[in-house]
């Protein structure tokens, strides 16, 4: 058998108080697509960072084609033929695609500090050709669609080929989390094409995807590799069981906890709502109902969601809450009306990273921690601690900066933000499970069900069609800024993703 | 913040309590309250000489400090040089810091940044019993004669100098034609007086027409741009340029040179900085008015030194000498040679001679 392209032996990494990697072993064979699965905190990110030289391991070794190596930086890793497509896209938005592709290793495109644009365009084109992308290399990156940017990113990583004579190792960290189904298909086609000349490590929270595109999956748990599965014939549940260490519940979406919607006056009633990117939107959400809005990029569903939170201006239409017409000139007005919003971009729009868990949790509903006009430290402590317990948020304490928590726990704090005052009547959830692992997702789902049971109406922009179908009582399909159709989605009568996709395009 | 907050609150409430208990007072307690006031004469070697000007980076004020140094050296002392970058608050801060030290034999020769800065300096010096001589800027209703240790205020008659150079300019352009005026920093007495002088001159020389007036803030660079703009605005109508100081006049000269008008437009200024005197001598500038920086720097300290050492009794200084215009001369091509190399004359600083250059009481 040939020497593996990449091998990791007994890698250990300590962070203060945490053992992120506890002797991980990993073998990546040449020209295979290896899936890496594991819950948040299983050590995936740390392992990947170690592989591209961003984290120095405390013990253990990394072997590239049998040779032990020490990777000190991204450049070092690239010299050994290892490159990574980062979860948060790592492109400079105000440079051209070509510049991003050659960034850091311009080679002949820059001679003595002077750019040779034609050479650069050619170099970039070569990379883009490899993956069959037809993006204009000289387009500014921030004018490209998200999926196109992902392509640019892959093209950029493939530049490492030029540094070594051997086939490169390309790491894709959560590449699908923000892609639309069609874009995912394109990406998978690219990955299969990549396999012809490269080795791929693929990381995703969506186990079906992992099984779909990978040849083999290694499962991490608690900083160790706990198993390896050949994907042919494997089912997600088996992987899931290995990831969490026990048999996962079949009821991922907690469907049996779904409340029966009693037909009564709707909690939210939208009539003829129009804005810059959407027109004439009308729908109702009853108390305790979860309504999902699905649609491709550019369907306008995000903007509808933001308009309902007063974060996007509207030009016409009426919004009623519990029968009373409300005006939403600002996000503050929406808050006062009992509307809560969990934005998709958690790190930018959701949380205030350097501020504490307690401050983040009470940011929207200050009233909950006040006595008169003053902050009551005891009241705040009791309140925050109780929500930390109720949502089992894993944090060293309420005063820990939220940026030190894992993604799932951060998201729980953001959700708790709307619950602490107990006055939320409508929740707008924009990709609430983006970037969360299965365990954390499941907890968010459970929470949504619990809230629905108390009568909270929910508008959900799902991370995937499956999620929308699994959680929603009703689904609105949006295309080109309009509601194309409405699909009932009761327990036991769920539509299939295919049916929805047909409506979406 | 919580940790910091508690002691702060305590300190706050304590200090408030203390205030209620003890009431307020005019002056900080402690230190020496002996208002010297000329009672006990100081040993010459114990006198502390302080000279304060805006900055050391212009020729006029540099020569002021040099004059102060020369005087200090003549009596075996050194001058403490203070500069405040034309920053009123910084000047006050420095003064109050100086006055917080030993003020028994302190002599200060100060150039207040503007009229408004004089009162607090005077008040502070008076309370601390420091000898003070101020120059140039002072509000009219504030009079040294009302104070014990504010020995004198020296200035030049800005109206007179503004008028003198205005007249010289009028003569140079043959009594008729358009001129432009470059004003100094608008809220200073010097700028206002000098401009008032120009207006007087214009009343007399009816043929001369003031085409435009702009502020160039006593700055050579600003004068350059403003002059260039005014030259294009008024074109050939400009026969002369009146500048409220020499720096601006020199800036205007550069502008004329760049516009190819060198020698065709008459320029006048005030202050007699070396470059301007040279220019007058060469004929590129028409006239300037002397104000002798090094003499000002020396004589202010000398008056204070004489008073501190008891050679000059404050009560005995003639009332007219407590606030006076110093002699100034119109410098034209004829007499420029005499002013080309200003020297300090130690004799000027003898206690008997310090008021020799009094041209008249302040009006």
């Amino acid at each position, binding site marked *: 058998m040939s020497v593996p392209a990449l091998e990791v032996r007994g890698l250990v990494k300590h962070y203060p108080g945490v053992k992120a990697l506890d002797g991980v072993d990993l073998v990546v064979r040449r020209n295979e697509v290896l899936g890496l699965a594991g819950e948040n905190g299983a050590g995936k990110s740390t392992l990947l960072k170690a592989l591209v030289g961003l984290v120095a391991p405390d013990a253990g070794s990394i072997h590239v084609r049998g040779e032990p190596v020490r990777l000190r930086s991204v450049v070092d890793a690239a010299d050994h033929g290892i490159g990574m497509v980062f979860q948060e896209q790592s492109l400079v938005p105000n*440079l051209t695609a070509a510049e991003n592709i050659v960034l850091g290793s311009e080679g002949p495109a820059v001679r003595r500090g002077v750019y040779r644009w034609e050479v650069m365009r050619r170099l970039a084109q070569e990379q883009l050709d490899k993956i069959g992308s037809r993006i204009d290399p000289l387009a500014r990156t921030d004018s490209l669609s998200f999926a196109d940017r992902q392509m640019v990113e892959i093209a950029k990583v493939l530049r490492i080929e030029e540094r070594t004579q051997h086939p490169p190792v390309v790491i894709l960290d959560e590449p699908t989390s923000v892609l639309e189904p069609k874009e995912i298909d394109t990406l998978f086609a690219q990955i299969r094409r990549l396999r012809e000349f490269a080795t791929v490590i693929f990381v995703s929270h969506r186990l079906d995807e992992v099984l779909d595109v990978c040849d083999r999956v290694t499962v991490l748990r608690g900083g160790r590799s706990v198993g390896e599965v050949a994907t042919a014939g494997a089912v997600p549940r088996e992987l899931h069981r290995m990831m969490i260490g026990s048999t996962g519940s079949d009821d991922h979406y907690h469907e049996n906890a779904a409340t029966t919607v009693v037909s009564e006056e709707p909690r939210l009633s939208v009539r003829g709502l129009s804005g810059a990117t959407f027109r004439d939107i009308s729908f109702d959400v009853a108390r305790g109902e979860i309504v999902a809005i699905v649609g491709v990029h550019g369907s306008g569903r995000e903007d509808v969601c933001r308009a309902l939170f007063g974060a996007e201006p509207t030009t016409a239409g009426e919004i009623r809450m519990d029968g009373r017409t409300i005006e939403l000139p600002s996000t503050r007005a929406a808050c006062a009306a009992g509307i809560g919003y969990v934005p998709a971009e958690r790190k930018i729009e959701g949380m205030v990273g350097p501020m504490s868990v307690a401050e983040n949790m009470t940011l929207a509903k200050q009233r909950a921690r006040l006595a008169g006009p003053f902050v009551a430290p005891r009241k705040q402590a009791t309140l925050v601690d109780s929500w930390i317990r109720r949502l089992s948020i894993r944090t060293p304490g309420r005063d820990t900066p939220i940026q030190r928590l894992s993604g799932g726990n951060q998201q729980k704090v953001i959700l708790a933000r709307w619950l602490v005052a107990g006055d939320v009547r409508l929740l707008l959830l924009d990709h609430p499970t983006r970037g969360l692992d299965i365990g954390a997702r499941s907890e968010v789902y459970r929470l949504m069900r619990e809230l629905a049971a108390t009568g909270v109406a929910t508008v959900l922009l799902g991370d995937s069609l499956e999620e929308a179908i699994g959680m929603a009582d009703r689904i609105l399909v949006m295309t080109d800024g309009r509601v194309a159709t409405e699909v009932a989605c009761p327990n036991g009568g769920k539509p299939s993703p295919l049916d929805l996709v047909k409506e979406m395009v | 913040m919580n940790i910091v907050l508690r002691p702060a609150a305590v300190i706050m409430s304590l200090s408030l309590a203390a205030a209620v208990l003890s009431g307020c007072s005019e002056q900080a307690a402690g230190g020496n309250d002996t208002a010297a006031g000329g009672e006990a004469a100081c040993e010459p070697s114990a006198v502390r000489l302080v000279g304060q000007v805006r900055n050391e980076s212009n020729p006029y004020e540099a020569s002021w400090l040099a004059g102060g140094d020369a005087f200090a050296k003549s009596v075996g002392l050194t001058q403490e040089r203070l500069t405040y970058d034309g920053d009123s608050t910084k000047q006050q801060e420095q003064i109050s810091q100086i006055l917080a030290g030993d003020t028994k034999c302190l002599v200060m020769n100060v150039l207040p940044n503007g009229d408004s800065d004089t009162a607090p300096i005077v008040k502070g010096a008076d309370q601390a019993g420091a000898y003070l001589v101020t120059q140039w800027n002072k509000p009219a209703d504030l009079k040294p004669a009302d104070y014990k240790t504010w020995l004198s205020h020296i200035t030049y008659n800005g109206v007179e100098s503004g008028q003198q150079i205005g007249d010289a300019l009028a003569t140079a352009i043959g009594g008729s034609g358009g001129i432009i005026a470059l004003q100094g920093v608008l809220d200073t007495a010097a700028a206002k007086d000098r401009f008032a002088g120009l207006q007087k001159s214009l009343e007399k020389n009816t043929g001369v027409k003031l085409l435009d007036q702009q502020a160039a803030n006593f700055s050579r660079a600003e004068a350059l741009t403003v002059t260039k703009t005014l030259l294009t605005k008024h074109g050939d109508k400009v026969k002369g340029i009146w500048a409220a100081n020499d720096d601006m006049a020199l800036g205007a000269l550069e502008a004329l040179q760049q516009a190819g008008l060198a020698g065709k437009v008459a320029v006048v200024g005030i202050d007699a900085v070396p470059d301007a005197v040279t220019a007058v001598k060469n004929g590129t500038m028409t006239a300037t008015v002397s104000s002798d920086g090094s003499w000002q720097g020396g004589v202010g300290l000398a008056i204070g030194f004489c008073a501190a050492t008891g050679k000059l009794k404050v009560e005995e200084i003639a009332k007219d000498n407590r606030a006076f215009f110093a002699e100034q001369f119109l410098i034209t091509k004829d007499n420029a040679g005499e002013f080309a190399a200003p020297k300090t004359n130690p004799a000027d600083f003898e206690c008997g001679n310090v008021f020799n250059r009094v041209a008249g009481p302040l009006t």
Partner: protein
Amino acid sequence: MTSEVVNAPRRQSRRGASFRDAGPPVALIVVFLVFAALSPQFRSLDNVANIVDAAAVLAVVTCGITFVLMMGSIDLSAAGVMGASALTVSLLVANNRNDNDFGLLGIAVAVLLGCAFGCLSGLALVLLKVPSFMATLGMSAVGLGVATLMFAGVQPNISDTMVKGLAIERFLGLSYLTWIAAGCVLVGWLVQRYTRLGRYAFAIGGAEEVLALSGVKVKPYKVAVFTLAGAFYGLAGVMVTSQLGAGLVQAGDGYDFSAITAAVVGGTLLTGGRGGIGHSAVGVLLVMVLTNGLVQVGVSPYWQGGVEGLIVVAAVAAAVIPQRRRNQVVK
């Protein structure tokens, strides 16, 4: 002055971007036409040449500051660096203080001194992690101190005909200094468009952490950008000296804020990653047209500063309003 994370949630539409780019030139034309209508002297060819001449020094300073602003940093060291360079050059070329007569070499030394100051600011930023606002403010004070030391009480007047000639001699109706400034703008544009330094400065303003992730060592480029800016200030100090015929400590007074104003009015963002030399050149002209126009139409000197401030705010507002968004971050 913050860096937004790479993938801004809502992209600028391309139309919005072009709006921003078109705003300042349109404002320039409008302001010019307004003054031209109000004052016949303003629209004379002489005055237009005068405006362009007067813009020379500010243009050079703004060239330097633009690169720093593109990175998202700020530079307040122009005043000090120009003062030091003005004194240096006036003491090195033929002058009344000493027997030096180094001519062009003197100019080169002054520019190099500017580089050194810029380099120090940059080093303070990357090594000591002092925000550029403070690092350059401190450097400005140091520059003024050095200049005052060299001044030593006597104004150095230059007699070097070559240096003085730069301000006096004309080519095609504009002074040599103006052509030098035009050259600087061209060089600046080339640097910004065609060199790694320029493109990286732009990229640092866009997403600094991405550069680091791509294995680019950002720090040397930051220092280099400040050094380049210092060179421009050094040259500007020489130009002021040539105009005034003397080395003044105050040579750079006020240029720091005017240059930032010019750059921002031209459409360069203080947060970095947007704008450039072309924008700044338009901004410089806009500021100069305003200054000149207000004098030409006879606005009282008391009010000139205020009216200028008002128009600058209005110009920026006019450029910004078409692309206002409700949830926009403005610092």
